[in-house]
């Protein structure tokens, strides 16, 4: 089994990879199962899907991870609402890392683009890495 990516492995400034995933019917259906159908097809749903796709992108690229990581902060710029059926390319890089109060913090830059390279989101995930 592949060893998990540890905090010591992160190199600030280094690209971690990319992944392309579709915003398909199953994602929309899963979102509606949690947040209801009242916002189906609206930007509220699209923005939520953008967050979900950012997470799927990050988790698809930065893997395997040690269990128990948690979010500390998130900066997220929604630049366009993704369209159902659109393929979203997510690129992940390590921005920085820091040990603070015996906690291992890492900042990841996560950017998503859609059809024709249009920018969908830019995010910075600040995570407390478990190991």
């Amino acid at each position, binding site marked *: 089994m592949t060893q998990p990516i540890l905090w010591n492995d992160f190199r600030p400034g280094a690209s971690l990879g990319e992944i392309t995933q579709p915003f398909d019917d199953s994602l929309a259906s*899963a979102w509606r199962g949690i*947040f209801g159908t009242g916002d189906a097809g609206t930007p509220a749903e699209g923005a939520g899907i953008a967050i979900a796709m950012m*997470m799927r992108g990050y988790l698809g690229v930065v893997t395997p991870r040690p269990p128990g990581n948690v979010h500390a902060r998130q*900066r997220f*710029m929604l630049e366009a609402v993704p369209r159902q059926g659109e393929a979203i390319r997510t690129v992940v890089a390590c921005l920085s890392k820091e040990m603070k109060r015996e906690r291992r913090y890492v900042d990841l830059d996560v950017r998503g683009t859609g059809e024709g390279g249009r920018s969908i989101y830019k995010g910075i995930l600040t995570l407390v890495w478990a190991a």
Partner: protein
Amino acid sequence: MTNELQAVSLTADADVIRAYGELTDDFNPIHIDPEFAAKTPMGGCIAHGTMSICLLWQSMFRSFGDGAAQRVELDVRFVKPVRVGETIHAGGELESADSQTYRVWVRGDDGVDRLVGTARLSPEGTTA
């Protein structure tokens, strides 16, 4: 601009947390494995942090309308975990009409913040 965002609520029970894990492909055991989670600094299972952000989007877009803001810059901190079974509420208030900035939050039934931050809007075609 509206002064107050329309509040939106969600109960983060185990089924919802499991469903959100499937939506995001995030099966971190801190969300779904009580035995594992009990041994972490969180002391038990917690909901995914980004679930609260999705709820915040609902609050914002319901308040602004579909075309009101094409670009939103969100900066939030997760100040307290959302425990399994808690009902959370997302909302916010206008902080600055000039910069189109809202102070946003997600709170529990106890009125204590789980997530706090700002949301800055800009219409389509402008720079945020």
